[in-house]
């Protein structure tokens, strides 16, 4: 008898746990404070800029406190959803440019079209970031900064392998990779470290060969990775990976981070964001590191890189006036110049300089602007395809065709 009761209690308790519940914690803003969600990039890379903007803002708005909460890319949307449901969303949120469409379509942000002219350099905003923040002709976000992708490399190892200058074509880079491999026989050494399923790198090859991920045709999305040009790009990626990288063919570029392997001295060069040299090499090889633009298969041109970037948006229910004022301070010319000095691309063309980052941005590609694109990323359609190609489980054509069909159905879903 007793066992029966215990069993019943245990079962009820355990069943309750299987029904998941979301949690939300952030504070509700009042007129005397605003809550700002920035990514940890700002926390690690430019906390000083954030602090000085906040003190300026608080001076201009006596009695208003700025409460900055740092978020991680992988989790911030789940948290944001929870705050939207709870009616306590932040006043300003940093959104990746690839994340904007879905939320604009759902009406998560306030329309700030009428304030556009009051933001500094707004007539020269980078078109990629401005497009990502525009929906149905209305503006829902302010460009914050962009980042292109470059190749970080070990100058000492290049010199030792007899490579006098950075490669200017993919063919040259392949030859250099072989030279690096011949001089560095340590087990697990990658002349050019690329995590197999790193689709940001792989899609650069696709766009370099004239392919693309998807296009619209008669108002519908069509996956185009199985087009001859895209297949040529994917094949080039496979060939380059096989020569240059000893990274896992299944683990993504966060497991481990390429710069961790680089700091262990097992990498000759690695494509990735610009800021790795400033912040992530654990103090190793920072002097012996330099960067160049990833070369195209067409000699002399850069390979198109993923143009990542962030927009600042004002969620529904936020204090719009204060939020817009804070964004104005955070994207003014002085702040953008300071961000540029940290290795980022500023938000407007009239501020652009001639750094390796900015030269790399000359040719770039961007994800299809469908509100369902996030589901392609969540479903790991591209990563799975790359793993299938690299492990030889499927041919390039089979894997690309399968992925393309999936993309078509997800984007139109």
């Amino acid at each position, binding site marked *: 008898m007793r066992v029966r009761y215990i069993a019943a209690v245990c079962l009820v308790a355990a069943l309750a746990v299987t029904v998941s519940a979301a949690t939300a914690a952030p504070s509700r803003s009042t007129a005397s404070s605003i809550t700002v969600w920035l990514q940890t990039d700002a926390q690690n890379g430019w906390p000083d800029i954030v602090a000085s903007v906040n003190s300026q803002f608080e001076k201009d708005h006596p009695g208003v406190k700025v409460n900055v909460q740092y978020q991680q890319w992988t989790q911030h949307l789940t948290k944001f959803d929870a705050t939207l449901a709870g009616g306590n969303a932040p006043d300003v949120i940093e959104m990746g440019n690839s994340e904007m469409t879905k939320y604009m379509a759902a009406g998560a942000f306030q329309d700030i079209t009428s304030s556009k002219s009051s933001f500094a350099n707004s007539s020269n905003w980078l078109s990629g970031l401005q497009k990502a923040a525009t929906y149905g002709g209305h503006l829902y976000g302010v460009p914050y900064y962009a980042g292109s992708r470059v190749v970080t490399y070990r100058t000492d190892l290049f010199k030792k392998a007899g490579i006098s200058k950075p490669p200017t074509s993919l063919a040259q880079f392949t030859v250099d990779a072989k030279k690096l491999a011949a001089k560095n026989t340590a087990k697990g050494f990658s002349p050019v470290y690329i995590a197999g399923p790193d689709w940001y790198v792989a899609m650069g090859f696709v766009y370099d060969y004239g392919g693309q991920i998807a296009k619209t045709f008669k108002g519908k999305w069509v996956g185009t990775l199985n087009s001859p040009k895209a297949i040529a790009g994917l094949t080039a990626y496979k060939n380059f990976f096989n020569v240059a990288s000893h990274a*896992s063919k299944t683990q993504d570029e966060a497991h481990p981070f390429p710069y961790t392997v680089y700091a*262990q001295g097992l990498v000759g060069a690695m494509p990735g964001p610009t800021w790795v040299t400033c912040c992530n090499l654990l103090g190793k090889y920072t002097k012996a590191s330099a960067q160049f633009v990833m070369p195209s298969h067409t000699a002399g041109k850069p390979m198109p890189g993923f143009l990542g970037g962030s927009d600042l948006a004002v969620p*529904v229910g936020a204090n719009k006036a204060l939020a817009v004022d804070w964004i104005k301070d955070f994207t003014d010319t002085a702040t953008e110049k300071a961000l540029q000095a940290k290795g980022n691309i500023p938000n407007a063309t009239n501020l652009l300089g001639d750094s390796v980052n900015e030269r790399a941005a000359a040719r770039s590609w961007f994800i299809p602007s469908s509100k369902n694109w996030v589901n392609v990323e969540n479903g790991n359609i591209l990563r799975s395809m790359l793993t299938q190609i690299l492990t030889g489980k499927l041919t390039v054509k089979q894997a690309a065709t399968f992925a393309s069909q999936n993309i078509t159905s997800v984007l139109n879903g």
Partner: protein
Amino acid sequence: MSSSQVPDRAAVAAEITPPWSRRRRRSPWQRAGNSSVPYLLVLPVLAAIGAVLAYPLYKLVVISFQKYGLFELIRRHGTWVGLDNYRSVLGDGVFWRTLERTVVFTIANVGLTMLLGTLIALLLVRVSSLVRVLLTVGLVLVWSMPVVVAVQVWYWMTNYQNGVLNYFLTEVHLGDYFQHDWYATNFSKLAMVTALIVWGAIPFVTITVYAGLAQVPSELVEAAEIDGAGPLRVFRDVTFPVLKPILLILTSLSIIWDFGVFAQPWLLVTASGWNASNYLMGVYVYIEGYAHSDFGRGAAISLLMLLIVALLSVFYVRQMVKTEEAG
């Protein structure tokens, strides 16, 4: 029901009923007051359960009949769509393949947990007290390790680039495991998750079964041994019948935990390793509900999961109750 419980109940009643109430005649008012006391005492618990369990469950049921995406989330009310969510989930091949995979996964996990847990418990009885203490401490440490920490350590150990497991296996000349990818295929991914879950679940099973073993009458074991029964026979005919109710509870709890498990697989395989060909139910419901922001569909899937687990549990509880009554 055994007859031995009747005097028990009378004794309990005698204890909780104040002596005066048995002597005096009670007014109907008093009688009503007395009989409602237990209910009043239970009330706070019911209120708490209602707040943290019943209301969310009710919300979940409501949302499962609605179109409830990001658009509806922001406006905080969904559109009624009847059975559409259930229809779309049940008509989705991914759901059925995920269910199949999860059932196999659960059987493997629960089977291994119960087998290894029971074997270690039997071992505990036989070893010297020093070894028993060491073993118990080890088990408790495993049990007290937070899941997230365990996953992280496990992941480091099995890491492709720098994992100590690959290093160790290569050093002891079990083959060249340099840069061996333990997460290369769907099977190996789920096998790693299984290893982690079983490792984490063994202590609970072992310690509970060990406690149960203390109830096995040693004179019965002795008698069986004198009659010439081998260790297997003793286990089957003497130990097992005593342990049976405990093993049934442990099995049904393990099924509930492993069927809906989320933290270990999600963190170990990492978000980028999941795709439609290797989902488990816990991961599937997260992807459909949260990642795709389709909360209506997510709610429908979690209710279907609840139903499946409840059905499985009913079977075990019935078994358990039968055993109790037979005993």
